[in-house]
Each structure stands twice: as C-alpha cells, then as structure tokens.
C-alpha cells in the first residue's frame, strides 16, 4: 500500500504528499485530511484489549470482505458511471477496513499472523491477507456472489443501512479511535445508502423486468438479514463498556428505514426463513458460507505468494 521510497515514512502519513499548500494543483484535488489527525491512539482505560481487538476485526472484516466483493464489479457494471460509483463504495469500505484492522492489531498484537523475519508487510495487511477463513469475523451477509445489478443494489441498501445505524452510535464510543473512524464512516455510508436506495426505487418502479429482478434479489438477500442483528458476546461486552455497539439495538431503526423504502417503491419485506448456523456458529464466530473460501483465495493469493513483498 505504499511506494518504493522509505516505507516507514510513507506508512506514517500517506497524506503528507497530498495535503495543502500547492494552489496550482487545486483542479487535481488537494487538501486531503487524515481521519485520525490529532486523535489519541492509546487504549482507553478499563477496556479489555483482546475484546476490543476482536470487535475491530468484526467491523473491519465486514468492510473488507464486502469491499472485495463490490470491487469485482470493476469493468463489469452496466456503464462507466456505475462502474466508478461501485468502485468508490468499495474503496470507502476498504479505507474503513484498513483503519479498523490497524486498531485491531494495536489493541492485541497476538492476533496478527506471523510473517517471515524482516517482512515489510504492515499489520493490517497481515490481518487481511494472511488470516485463514476461520479467523475472519465478518457476518455472512457480505460474502455471497454479487449476482446481477439488482441483487447488488438490494444487498448494498440493506448493508449500508445497517452499518450506518451502527456507525452513528459508534461515534459516541469511549475509544477515541473508534469514534473518529465512525465519524468518517457515517459520511461515506450515508452516500452509499442514498445511492443504493435510489437504484432500489428506480428498479422497483422501472420496467417489468427490472421489478421482477429486484423482487427476486430481495428474496435472495433476505435469509442472511437476521444474522446482522445477532449479538456476539464480544459485542455485548463492549457495548456494556461504552466502546462498542450492540447490533440488536439498531434492528428496529434499520427495519423502519427499510420499511420506508419498501413502502415508497411498492415492495414488501420478504417472507423467507432465515439461514441457519454453519455447524455451531455464524460469521462472527468464524463460521462462514461456501462463497467465503473462493473469495479469500482470490483476495489473498498474491500477497501470500510474496510474504516479504513490498507493495
């Protein structure tokens, strides 16, 4: 994720070369902001570091895995503009994942997979590319194949509505880093939800074919909906400590918001049974769906082939 120069210096601040100063470059985009500038990164008192680390993995893995899935639209979207829009969403989520995995590694370094002596791979990359499937803590909702454009929009609407509700509460976290990450994520997810919501409406009220596909998409996406709001013990613990958010607490808000979209678009909340557990658990327990293995293989293969690679 950094260039050929001094790796450590680049890693300290990827914004250093891009922030402010040069008026002549305004048309190319300047004044980038580091979302963690001025934030105290020490661990808050009275918080279980191992639990905080696990919690950051959960939120980070949701974003990482979904980001990878959405990035598979690149060059395949219906037109150039949607191609870039989806890539932007994927990159927003990748940015959130990066910050959260950095936090996970800072809270509990034991989680980070061991790499060869002298490997320049930063902790967040080691977590993303060198963990095995069972160590991922994302919900299964983000794992399935993208399907067609309608499936992608239905899934994105539900996911961004859910994640936005969580992040809005996480802004109040006692962990100043999580709070700052959440504040940044809220702005991004608000756009993602708006983007997916508009398409949801357009497809629902478009042609007979677009509506047929959207209704099929909702039915396809819905079995993994309930898992989003299932509280893992780590989430319960951190919610109690004022650091994390209990996903069950946002279930009603999410349902109300989605109901509004359903109502305006003339669709109904699907009536399909929830997917059961995989063996003894679900995504947050490291138990994933069939789609997860191939996704990880594609995402991790290059990094694993070069464990001492410099990117």
């Amino acid at each position, binding site marked *: 994720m950094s260039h050929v120069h001094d790796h450590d210096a680049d890693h300290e601040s990827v914004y250093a070369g891009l922030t402010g100063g040069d*008026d002549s470059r*305004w048309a*190319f*985009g300047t004044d980038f902001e580091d979302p963690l500038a001025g934030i105290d990164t020490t661990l808050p008192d009275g918080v279980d570091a191992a639990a905080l680390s696990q919690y950051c993995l959960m939120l980070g893995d949701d974003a990482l895995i979904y980001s990878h899935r959405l990035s598979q639209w690149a060059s395949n979207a219906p*037109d150039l503009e949607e191609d870039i829009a989806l890539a932007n969403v994927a990159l927003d989520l990748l940015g959130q994942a990066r910050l959260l995995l950095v936090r996970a590694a800072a809270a509990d370094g034991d989680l980070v997979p061991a790499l060869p002596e002298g490997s320049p791979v930063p902790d967040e990359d080691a977590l993303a590319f060198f963990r095995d499937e069972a160590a991922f803590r994302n919900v299964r909702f983000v794992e399935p194949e993208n399907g067609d454009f309608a499936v992608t929009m239905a899934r994105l609407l539900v996911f961004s509505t859910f994640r936005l509700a969580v992040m809005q509460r996480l802004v109040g976290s006692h962990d100043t880093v999580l709070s700052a990450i959440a504040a940044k994520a809220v702005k991004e997810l608000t756009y993602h939800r708006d983007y997916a919501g508009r398409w949801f409406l357009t497809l629902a009220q478009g042609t007979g074919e677009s509506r047929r596909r959207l209704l099929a998409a909702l039915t396809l996406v819905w079995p993994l909906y309930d898992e989003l709001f299932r509280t893992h013990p780590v989430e319960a613990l951190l919610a109690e400590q004022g650091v994390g958010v209990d996903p069950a607490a946002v279930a009603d808000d999410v349902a109300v918001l989605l109901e509004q979209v359903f109502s305006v678009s003339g669709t109904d909340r699907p009536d399909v049974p929830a997917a059961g557990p995989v063996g003894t658990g679900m995504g947050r327990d490291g138990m994933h769906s069939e789609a997860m293995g191939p996704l990880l293989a594609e995402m991790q293969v290059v990094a694993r082939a070069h464990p001492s690679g410099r990117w």
Partner: protein
Amino acid sequence: MSGQAQPRAGAEPVEAEWPLYEIFVRGKRGLNHVHVGSLHAADDEMALRHARDVYTRRNEGVSIWAVRAALVAASSPDEKDPLFAPANDKIYRHPTFYAIPDDVPHM
C-alpha cells in the same frame, strides 16, 4: 442502459442511451465552476450523483453544476473566423496602456 434497449409493444419507445450532460465543478480554491467533462445520466439528479462519483473522487470539488449538453448553445467551428478573428489584432482593447497601481489585485 447499454444501448440494447428495444421499444416494447404498447410502451413508450426506450431511448437507446441516457442523455449527455456537461459537468462543471467548483474546486475548493477555485473562484468559479470549471468545465471538467461530460457523462451520461437518466435525469438531472442522477447526473449530479454521477458527477460526484466520476469527477470529485479525488477531493477536487465542493460544488457541481450539471447541464444537459443538448441545452448548451454552442458556437460553430465554421464561424471561427467571423466570430473571433476580428479580435486578434485589437491589442488596444486591453487596458495595458494605463498605469495600474500596485495594490490593485487580479489584473
């Protein structure tokens, strides 16, 4: 969306392609909106969203104008000489023959 749409019986003919929009962005430090390019969108609102996604993803702007390309009245290249050539030797139309005080900006 891909130009494959065919008119269906009994329905409004479906346009083969979304209309073209011209996009203007005001940079953070720019004084005015600058033309940055064009894109296709189904309507004005989608044009703004697409412009945000395509033209401001590197922190380029704080404001967007989207204008349907068909609504832009444009001069024709054929008229270049009668329209513009007469101005190219009228150097006296520039206020360069006056002394400008040092504290007058933007001149």
